[in-house]
């Protein structure tokens, strides 16, 4: 070959190699990947099809086994077990259906890359079906509601109740009118039925504030019958505030425009007026969130009474509520076991109102709690209001009325963006009062020492005087807020009418009345007198009572149409139907129903079932053979557990009278070991806190009324003069925590109230001579708490009785000379 040709060939080779590499990397590799992908698709299709066919076969086999078991349990009268097996068969059929769907549609669609086509079937349809409202009519078991014609239903929330839309009969409407509830159109009936799966705690929770809510005109009617519990409220057709907020933001660029901002202020004003009404009536909503606020005709209506709680309730706080709108401090308090009446529940509503205002401004949830940042353009004063509402519990607005004043100030301004926080009534009043010695701290521009109530009252009076009807407006244009005040929601109106307050024409220029009203409104919901300093220099003060709270409404645009009647005393309208009594009656009815069922079952067993048994006897024998070993094993296991429990409670096992806490006391079975239980080494009187009781509370949180009963039982131990270890909390002694932790660690995973757990507890008690007993609060089979007391060996029999009596609820005499816990500790 000639050199030129050779060179040409080499050159061609050099050029071809990169092309070849390029081709391999960019063409052949992807092509191979594509082929592999196709193979994988086919492989997945084939394996999927085979897998589902096998799954169907497996489900059929399982069903074949389960069906006779169901029949067998029907035959022997074990209805619960037969239902259980029936549900299992149902699940198998669902599995078969799903597998069939995948074989026919799912896998072929995935093979042909048509997954987006089936997404609707696989995801969206199940979601829609799950979220669909229930039946438009109550079930036959529930029956109909007398005086109401059911016309539709609404999706139920998390409360377990069913919601029906209904039209009241003419008689009902007349009855409502007689109560002062005029123009009732459609209503919503929230119904709970044990037969339909509602539970007793759900009913108790919903029921606890209804008498007060009815007096305030928030609900129309409520009733508890043999079959169900229900209450009736007005139906407000509209959309939730969440959807309205999205609509408001859909047209806005970066933040809300002036018109939208005015609407937001209007909704916030509506909400705060309603909350003020709640709090003045001694109630606390507890679940304020956009989904519970319905916007209709430009007005915001607060709905859902599921968690409404009396502010003076003696129950323990619970963590119920909705994330982002629930004050985290409330959760902490609930976990510490704080009682409702020990805190100001209205402040948790104020936090939620701040969160709702935040969500309207930002079109988002306050994910960062009180530290959430408002990033969209918004008046600085409004931003301040949100922060003040969502700040720490003891620093936020004292009342919803104060927050309302601030928002109205922003709404009334010609240019809301020009309103500075220092111009807000709360800043002028309360901040100045808090910072009374302003100059000492370099605090300027806050005016002198002005009483908070007086300043706020003056602001309120100016609201009433400046804008007839109290309508806050931007500039001088009447906005939706004005319209709202012109056509205040019917139920608020009628509720005020009940209290002898009507909507009037002119402003009530009574500064004194306004001062007393707002001052009273600040705290009247709690039934406590309000002391308002009228002259800081001379120290004069004025006491305002709940009656003046009514006048406070007049100052904000409502003038008494008739001479105000004295406020109705807060007493149950039907003294015989308190929540506790209804609970007792409901339990009694449940017990009766259970007894009836037992009698019926006993009757059925004694009747012609014999013939049926003969008919299916052959089948029974076959399956008894199959299930014999399994059944015998189950019985043996059950007997073993029972035996353990019995062994753990050799001495006393009794139920606390009048309480839901059960009590089991365990003493040493061998009195001579470790000291005589008869004579004992510990004194009968445990005064001085020298001896302690260690309390273990399971991580399972008990709700009321169990929680209160447990707290009471433990408190009585303290009254006995024993030092109680295990209360935990931020201020708890780390040494105590360590002792509890040590005992828990010693017990490990040993079950409650068994010999397995008794041994380590007893060993721990033996190592700690100062410990008289360990009290472990667990859950009984029925769900109620049981306090299992393991007594130390050295405690005398009479000492054991004293501890048992204390837990049982017998009043204990406080031993003389009992010193504080701190001094006991230091003295050791």
């Amino acid at each position: 070959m000639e050199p030129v040709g050779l060179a040409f060939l080499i050159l061609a080779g050099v050029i071809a190699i990169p092309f070849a590499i390029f081709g391999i990397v960019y063409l052949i590799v992807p092509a191979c990947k594509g082929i592999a992908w196709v193979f994988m698709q086919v492989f997945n299709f084939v394996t999927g099809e085979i897998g589902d066919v096998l799954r169907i076969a497996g489900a059929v086999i399982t069903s074949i086994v389960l069906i006779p078991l169901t029949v067998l349990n029907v035959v022997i009268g074990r209805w619960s077990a037969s239902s259980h097996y029936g549900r299992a068969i149902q699940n198998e059929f669902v599995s078969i259906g799903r597998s069939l769907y995948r074989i026919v549609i799912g896998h072929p669609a995935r093979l042909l890359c048509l997954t987006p086509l089936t997404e609707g079937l696989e995801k969206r349809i199940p979601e829609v079906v799950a979220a669909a409202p229930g039946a438009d009519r109550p079930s036959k078991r529930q029956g109909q509601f007398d005086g109401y014609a059911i016309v539709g239903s609404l999706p139920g929330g998390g409360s377990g109740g069913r919601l029906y839309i209904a039209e009241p009969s003419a008689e009902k409407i007349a009855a409502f009118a007689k109560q002062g509830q005029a123009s009732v159109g459609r209503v919503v009936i929230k119904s709970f039925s044990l037969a339909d799966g509602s539970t007793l705690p759900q009913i108790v929770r919903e029921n606890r504030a209804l008498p007060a809510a009815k007096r305030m005109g928030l609900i129309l009617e409520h009733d508890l019958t043999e079959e169900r519990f229900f209450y009736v409220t007005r139906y407000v057709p509209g959309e939730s505030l969440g959807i309205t907020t999205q609509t408001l933001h859909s047209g806005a660029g970066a933040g809300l425009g002036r018109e939208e901002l005015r609407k937001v202020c209007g909704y916030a004003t509506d909400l705060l007026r309603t909350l003020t009404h709640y709090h003045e009536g001694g109630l606390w909503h507890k679940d304020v969130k956009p989904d519970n606020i319905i916007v209709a005709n430009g007005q915001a209506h607060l709905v859902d009474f599921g968690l409404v709680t009396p502010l003076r309730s003696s129950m323990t706080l619970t963590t119920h509520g909705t994330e982002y709108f629930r004050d985290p401090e409330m959760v902490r308090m609930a976990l510490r076991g704080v009682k409702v009446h020990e805190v100001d529940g209205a402040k948790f509503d104020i936090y939620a109102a701040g969160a709702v205002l935040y969500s309207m401004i930002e079109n988002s949830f306050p994910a960062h709690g009180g530290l959430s940042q408002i990033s969209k353009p918004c008046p600085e004063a409004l931003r301040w209001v949100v922060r003040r509402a969502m700040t720490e519990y003891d620093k936020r607005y004292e009342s919803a009325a104060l927050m309302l004043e601030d928002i109205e100030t922003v709404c009334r301004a010609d240019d809301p963006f020009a309103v500075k926080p220092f111009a807000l009534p709360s800043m002028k009043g309360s901040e100045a009062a808090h910072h009374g010695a302003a100059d000492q701290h370099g605090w300027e521009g806050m005016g002198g020492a002005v009483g908070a109530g007086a300043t706020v009252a003056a602001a309120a009076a100016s609201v009433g005087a400046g804008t007839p009807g109290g309508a806050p407006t931007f500039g001088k244009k009447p906005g939706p807020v004005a319209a709202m005040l012109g056509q205040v929601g019917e139920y608020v109106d009628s509720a005020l009418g009940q209290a002898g307050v009507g909507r009037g024409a002119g402003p009530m220029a009574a500064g004194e009345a306004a001062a007393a009203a707002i001052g009273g409104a600040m705290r009247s919901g709690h039934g406590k007198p309000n002391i308002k300093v009228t002259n800081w220099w001379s120290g004069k003060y004025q006491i305002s009572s709940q009656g003046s709270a009514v006048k406070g409404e007049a100052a904000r645009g409502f003038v008494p149409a008739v001479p105000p009647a004295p406020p109705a005393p807060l007493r149950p309208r039907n003294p015989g139907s308190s929540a506790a009594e209804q609970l007792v009656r409901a339990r009694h009815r449940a017990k009766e129903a259970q007894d009836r069922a037992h009698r019926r079952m006993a009757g059925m067993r004694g009747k012609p079932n014999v013939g049926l048994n003969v008919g299916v006897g052959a089948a029974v024998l076959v399956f008894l053979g199959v299930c014999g070993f399994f059944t015998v094993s189950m019985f043996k296991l059950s007997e073993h557990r029972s035996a353990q429990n019995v062994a753990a409670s050799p001495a006393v096992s009794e139920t606390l009278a009048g309480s839901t806490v059960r009590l089991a006391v365990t003493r040493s079975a061998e009195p001579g070991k470790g000291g005589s239980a008869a004579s004992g080494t510990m004194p009968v009187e445990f005064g001085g806190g020298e001896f302690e009781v260690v309390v273990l509370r399971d991580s399972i949180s008990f709700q009321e009324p169990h929680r209160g009963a447990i707290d009471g039982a433990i408190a009585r131990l303290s009254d006995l003069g024993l030092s109680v270890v295990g209360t935990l909390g931020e201020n708890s002694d780390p040494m105590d925590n360590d002792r509890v932790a040590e005992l828990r660690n010693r017990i490990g995973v040993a079950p409650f109230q068994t010999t397995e757990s008794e041994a380590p507890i007893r060993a721990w008690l033996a190592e700690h001579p100062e410990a008289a007993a360990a009290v472990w609060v667990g859950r009984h089979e029925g769900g109620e708490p049981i306090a299992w007391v393991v007594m130390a060996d050295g405690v005398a029999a009479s000492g054991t009785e004293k501890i048992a009596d204390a837990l049982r609820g017998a009043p204990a005499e406080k031993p003389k000379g009992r010193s504080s816990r701190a001094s006991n500790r230091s003295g050791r």
Partner: protein
Amino acid sequence: MLNSLTTGFISRLRARDQAAWFDLWETFGPVLRAQLTKWGKGRIGPETVRDLSQETLAALSDSIDRYDPARGARFSTWLLAIAKHVLGDEMDRRNAQKRGGNKRAAELDETWMIASGQAGADAEYEAAVFRAKVEAAIRLVERGCEFTDFSIYRMRVLDGMPGKDVASSLGISEPTVSRRLAKVRDSLRVRLEEVISTYSFTEEERAEAARNGLAANPTKPDDTLFDEAIADIYRRQVELRESDRTRANA
């Protein structure tokens, strides 16, 4: 050696103090969820991430009694190792279910107690844990300070508003703003030290604040750096919480 704040907190966790567990969940929950989402690489949805972060704390609850502070693990590693275990266990269970078999939950070994680099905590995770501690300190300051004082700090530092505007908004003078600001800043330094001590197991962790421009004994120029660092951390925490919320509502 652990300080009294850490041992106090650990003792509360061991004694099953629900408030202590809630604090841990509130402070570090978003960090754990972000980390689990990152590890999940799209294989696990937001609901599962939420469940797993709860399971992480449950696993922690089961193992806290066996915790041995003498073995020198970092606090961040402590959380991370358990989260990793929970996620790994979940993935194993899923794979087993795909194969048609069952798999019991794996036992949590105690490697997380040992100081080592095996846990594989990346720098971003460590920074997120530190930011969560700073956020907890800010919350404590909010709880302890007067509302107006904290609002001044918040407007000036966290929202980046000029001092003049803050003064004008609140009707006070600029020197007053500066005085109030300094008061809150000092309080924040104290709280920061407390929080970092509570949630730190090693000396090296306790020195994190100084390393990140949040020295406890500052000079005048340090104040500006301190405020900038706090503002930056706050903004990142806001983003983290916002993404956590978005995931949860997805």
